[in-house]
């Protein structure tokens, strides 16, 4: 039996400043929780230059379900965390992204996109107005590129501090709040996409109520010296289990969330990737501050005139998973796109995927064919998310 994964590799190429593929070096970087992962029996894999847990002994399916039923703890310290500060920061960041940051209220978080001159997406990220600075979290595989881009473009307008070894933990699931509230009761009142400075067992942490699973939950930024202790404290709670990158991927797929490098890339615009909702009104053609970011002309034109292809959810009609790279055709045999993420959704109990199709095929319910191992498999365009999102919007 061939134990190698069939199809596309999971991780995007991670090149450092000199073009060396970090994922192939033997000296993968370690997060502050590396020893803890080993102790927990994690299966470690190289990812974006780091040694990361893909799963623990429970396995991907059980870790996934645990997150939707109780609370999962994820180490996402490989991601880039930045503190950007200075009076001109919001406007400077706006010059790189089609989102509203100038009017982002204090302690609120927003999903954002770094664009390139073609209107394509360089990376997707989270920006938080943290009071005296902006807190930015970027994808691990893009952080070298993102930081260089920001330094080059706006380094003169604001101070960009990279929190090099800072840890980032995600606590996700319906019971995440009751767990974290044991240590920081104020977390319970936080609404989705807000931030707070919370004392967790004597450690001051910037916490946001957000995540990448579709569930309620928090992301907790912790100084490296305290990360192991706080992680163990949370894992000691009966509701909490450790969850790896494997389940992180199946959770976000069910939630309809993009994975940069797969569902989003430099050649795809936010309009094509169905992320119009992320493009703030104030930055649109009729807004207060229209354009003013790379590729604005292309993006505004697409908003006005439409696009040729769109990102949609794909539901295989049978039990066979349809994975990344599978070509999509109409029932009549006309090529219409490809699958960019695909797998099996343990909560759904069925295969689930997302991909790009021609706009004429983008209506939910449209029947298409996906090619898997030389055969045509019936699939259907479906709305996302596949599993109901359960963000906390208040009582």
């Amino acid at each position: 039996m061939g134990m190698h994964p069939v199809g596309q590799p999971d991780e995007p190429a991670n090149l450092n400043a000199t073009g060396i593929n970090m994922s192939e070096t033997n000296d993968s970087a370690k997060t502050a929780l590396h020893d803890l992962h080993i102790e927990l029996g994690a299966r470690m894999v190289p990812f974006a230059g780091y040694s990361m847990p893909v799963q623990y002994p429970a396995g991907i399916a059980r870790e996934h379900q645990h997150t939707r039923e109780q609370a999962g703890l994820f180490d996402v310290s490989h991601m880039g965390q930045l503190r950007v500060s200075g009076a001109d920061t919001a406007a400077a960041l706006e010059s790189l992204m089609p989102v509203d940051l100038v009017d982002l209220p204090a302690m609120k978080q927003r999903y954002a996109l770094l664009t390139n001159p073609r209107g394509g997406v360089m990376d997707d990220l989270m920006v938080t107005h943290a009071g005296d600075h902006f807190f930015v979290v970027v994808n691990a595989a893009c952080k070298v590129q993102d930081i260089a881009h920001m330094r080059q473009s706006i380094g003169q307008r604001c101070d960009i501090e990279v929190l090099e070894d800072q840890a980032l933990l995600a606590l996700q699931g319906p019971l995440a709040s009751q767990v974290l509230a044991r240590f920081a009761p104020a977390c319970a009142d936080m609404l989705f996409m807000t931030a707070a400075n919370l004392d967790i067992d004597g450690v001051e942490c910037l916490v946001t109520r957000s995540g990448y699973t579709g569930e309620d939950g928090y992301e907790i930024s912790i100084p490296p010296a305290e990360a192991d202790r706080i992680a163990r404290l949370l894992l000691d709670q009966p509701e909490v289990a450790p969850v790896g990158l494997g389940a992180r991927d199946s959770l976000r797929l069910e939630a309809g969330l993009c994975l940069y490098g797969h569902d989003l890339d430099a050649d795809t615009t936010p309009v094509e990737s169905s992320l119009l909702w992320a493009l703030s009104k104030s930055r649109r053609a009729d807004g207060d501050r229209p354009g003013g970011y790379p590729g604005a002309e292309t993006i505004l034109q697409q908003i006005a005139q439409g696009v040729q292809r769109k990102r949609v959810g794909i539901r295989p009609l049978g039990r066979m998973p349809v994975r990344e790279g599978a070509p999509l055709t109409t029932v009549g045999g006309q090529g219409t796109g490809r699958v960019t993420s695909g797998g099996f959704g343990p909560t759904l109990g069925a295969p689930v995927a997302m991909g790009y199709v021609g706009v004429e095929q983008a209506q939910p319910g449209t029947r298409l064919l996906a090619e898997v191992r030389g055969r045509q498999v019936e699939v259907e365009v479906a709305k996302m998310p596949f599993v109901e999102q359960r963000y906390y919007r208040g009582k």
Partner: protein
Amino acid sequence: MSTLKFTEDHEWVLPAEDGTALVGITDHAQEQLGELVFVELPEVGREFDKGESIGVIESVKSASDLYAPVSGSVVEINDELDAEPALVNEDAMGAGWFVKIKLNDPTELDELMEEADYLQDLD
């Protein structure tokens, strides 16, 4: 006397008196793969050479080939695995069998490992 044989690719072959054999993946293999979500089996009647891919085993994250441990043809497939692929995780060495094959050349079995050798190989 029929003896259980093993391949380096973590499959087992259980020959019967009548020139047929059951084929499955080992307990070690199912543990490595994690919970199976889909199993694609060959059609009854399909002929194959040793080493040819005769099926696909899918977990949440990935798909792996099932390679024919010996040459032969498929006489029966385990229908249970269609609805319940996780049966392989529960009982890889028994109820989680994949296919029953007719052997082209029983001497090919001599090239496979005994259980002791397979288990030692795992260490």
